[in-house]
Each structure stands twice: as structure tokens, then as C-alpha cells.
């Protein structure tokens, strides 16, 4: 039936081997795109007419913020699937996401702060976007803390999945905060259906970075997933093969 691919996805040895096989592809393409984006953003793109070269923080800040949201959403969806279908692999995906998301949320917050000081005049304001992104950071920390609180992996999987699902409401809040409320943080720079907010010479490196960061997330996720899948397996025969290779 059409669900065979889904069930194969749930098979730990299949997931482990596929992750092992795919990781280099994602890693190398991420590296190439990120290097290209760095050169484009730092060097090739023109300065901004009002922010000068200070705006170049955009090229690391916006992709980091994008990852903070993408990773949390992945974590919540994987947790939800793990809860509903009782799938160990789904919980492994969720667990893999947390440190990645937390670190990029911190990167978004700090690079944003460094950008805000010269442009806005302040390192921090309790505006809707910044506040909700900070809440996201605490959600990630809470998720990781909750996991660590339980010795039994199954129990920590389930309880942290509930937290992930509950917290996912923060993601649309963060995204739409600049649209729904008066805020200091400006509106979105990249909209799917809207007019572009910058010329191609500035936009292309940014899009390259968005894709590069996303591929990087995929590569790191696949690496962590292997470890998380191994931990959740009782000593099955496929583990013996993998471990002694």
C-alpha cells in the first residue's frame, strides 16, 4: 500500500543506513552554498544606502532565525508523530533537533542584538518579535532539560514531545508578530508571494544562505539521528553490524 514508505521510514536500521548514506551529500552541498553565501554577502553584494556595510549581518542573522523556526517545527511535528504512531524514529528525530535549534536561536538573538545596537540604538527591546524569539529559546532549553530529567528514554520522549507540540504555537506568533503588532523589528525581508525588498545583487546571496543553512540542518540532523536511533535500540542484530564496522 502507499504506507509502505512510511513504515520503512519507521524502521531503525533503514533510517540509520539511509542517514549514513545521505549525510555527505547534504554536508558538502551545505558547505559549498554557505561559502558562496559568505563571499556574496560579505564581499560581493553592495552596501546598503542607509545601513552601509552594517546590514551584512543580515546574511547570518536571517538564516539563523529561519532555522530556529524550521527546526522547532520539525521537532514538534516529529514529536507529534512519535506520540500518535508510537514511533521511536520520530522521537529520535525530535531529540536530534533540539540542540541544533537552540544554538541557532541563540545565534539569531545575539546577531540581532549586535545589529540592533548601531541601527536601532539599542541591544534589546521587549518588542513582540524579540520577546517571542527569546521565549522560543527557553522552550528549546526546557525541552532539553525535560529530556534529561528522565532516565527512561521512552518516557522522556513522550513528555518532551508534549512540550514540543504545546510550544509550536510560538512559531506562527514569532513569524507574524511584525505583522500583527506594532514592533521595533521590521517586517519580513523575504516573502514568497510579495515583492522582493531588495535588488538581486543583495537578495541572491541571502537566498543562497537560506538554502545552505537548511542543508546544514539536514546534515547535522542526519548525523545526530544515527546516534539517537542507536540509543533507542535494544541490542538488535543490525546494531551489531553497525557497531563493529
Amino acid at each position, binding site marked *: 500500500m502507499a504506507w509502505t514508505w512510511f513504515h520503512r521510514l519507521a524502521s531503525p536500521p533503514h533510517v540509520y543506513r539511509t542517514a549514513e548514506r545521505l549525510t555527505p551529500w547534504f554536508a558538502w552541498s551545505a558547505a559549498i552554498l554557505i561559502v558562496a553565501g559568505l563571499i556574496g554577502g560579505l564581499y560581493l553584494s553592495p552596501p546598503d544606502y542607509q545601513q552601509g556595510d552594517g546590514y551584512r549581518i543580515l546574511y547570518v542573522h536571517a538564516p539563523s532565525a529561519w532555522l530556529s523556526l524550521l527546526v522547532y517545527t520539525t521537532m514538534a511535528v516529529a514529536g507529534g508523530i512519535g*506520540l500518535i504512531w508510537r514511533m521511536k524514529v520520530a522521537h529520535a528525530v525530535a531529540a536530534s533537533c533540539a540542540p541544533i535549534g537552540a544554538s541557532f536561536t541563540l545565534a539569531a538573538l545575539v546577531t540581532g542584538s549586535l545589529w540592533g545596537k548601531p541601527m536601532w540604538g539599542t541591544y534589546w527591546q521587549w518588542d513582540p518579535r524579540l520577546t517571542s524569539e527569546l521565549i522560543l529559546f527557553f522552550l528549546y532549553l526546557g525541552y532539553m532539560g525535560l529530556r534529561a530529567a528522565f532516565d527512561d528514554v521512552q518516557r522522556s520522549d513522550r513528555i518532551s514531545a508534549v512540550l514540543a507540540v504545546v510550544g509550536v504555537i510560538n512559531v506562527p506568533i514569532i513569524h507574524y508578530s511584525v505583522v500583527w503588532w*506594532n514592533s*521595533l523589528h521590521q517586517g519580513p525581508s523575504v516573502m514568497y508571494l510579495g515583492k522582493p525588498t*531588495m535588488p538581486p545583487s543583495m537578495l541572491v546571496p541571502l537566498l543562497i544562505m537560506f538554502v545552505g543553512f537548511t542543508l546544514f540542518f539536514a546534515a547535522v540532523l542526519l548525523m545526530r539521528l544515527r546516534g539517537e536511533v542507536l540509543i533507542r535500540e535494544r541490542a538488535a542484530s543490525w546494531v551489531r553490524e553497525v557497531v563493529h564496522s
Partner: protein
Amino acid sequence: MTPRRRRLVLVLGILTGVSIAGGLALSAFRQNVTFYFVPTQVADGKVHPGESFRMGGLVAKGSVYRKPGSLEVHFTVTDFKHQVPVIYTGVLPDLFRENAGVIVHGKMLPDGVFLADQVLAKHDQNYRPPGIHQKWGIDHGDPRDPALNAPANRAAAQVALNAGSAQ
């Protein structure tokens, strides 16, 4: 129903419940959640009197006046429907200039002037190289150009102050 169906309902229920709770909380606290008010809201008396608050809008063109020999600066914040005169003493952010976004924090004085203790520049999400006009957003000009912040003459500043937010 099957155990899996039950778990699905549980997860969707949690999602729905949290969304409703969050939505209700945010709408109930809208007044306190407001990060800044616009001049029209200030003119309409939507702000609690005597409290510090934030006001956001555009720096009205030609309204910036710097008192010579001090850091005191007067300007008007507008949302094109109402204007509020502001007095601030201190260093202004790099991106502060006329016709650009600004968010001020402070108190409303009894004579209708806003006494600011913090001035932040707000910029939009448009970026473009220098020299390309009007294609990628309003041209605010080079912030480092002193001519763009030409002080209004003293009389004009006084008129603006007297008028207050009565417009």
C-alpha cells in the same frame, strides 16, 4: 476508537487548546502587550495618563530642531493623521532622520509635549545600494548628510510645540 486514533485526537486537542488559550490571552492583554502607540492613539487618549509609554511614527519632515550648544533636540512624530511634538536630550541613533521611522519612550507632559528618555530609529525591511532612487523603497538619503537634518527655524519649532497634538 483505536488507541492510535485516541492519541491523534489528544495531540490535536492539545494544539487546539493551546492556540485558543494563547489567542484569548493575547487579545485580553492587548492594551498591555502594545509595544508602542501611534500619535492618533495618543491624541484619542488611548494611553493611561501619567504613565511612561512608547510612541512610534515618522519624524515629520522639517521638524527637527537642535538647540545649539546642547544635546537637546525637538522634533515631531507623525502618523500623517496626528502630530505629537517631542523633546529629547541625548545622543540620537545613527539612523535617526526626517521622514524615517522612530520609536520614542517617555511621558506626556501636561502641555501636550512628549518628553522622551529614549529615542530609537526604526527602519523598514527594504535594502538597496546607494544611488538607485525610488526603486527599492523611500529614499531617506544618507544619514550622514547634515543637510538632511537641517534645523527648522526657532519660530516654526515653537509653533509646532504650541500646537501640540491638537491637530
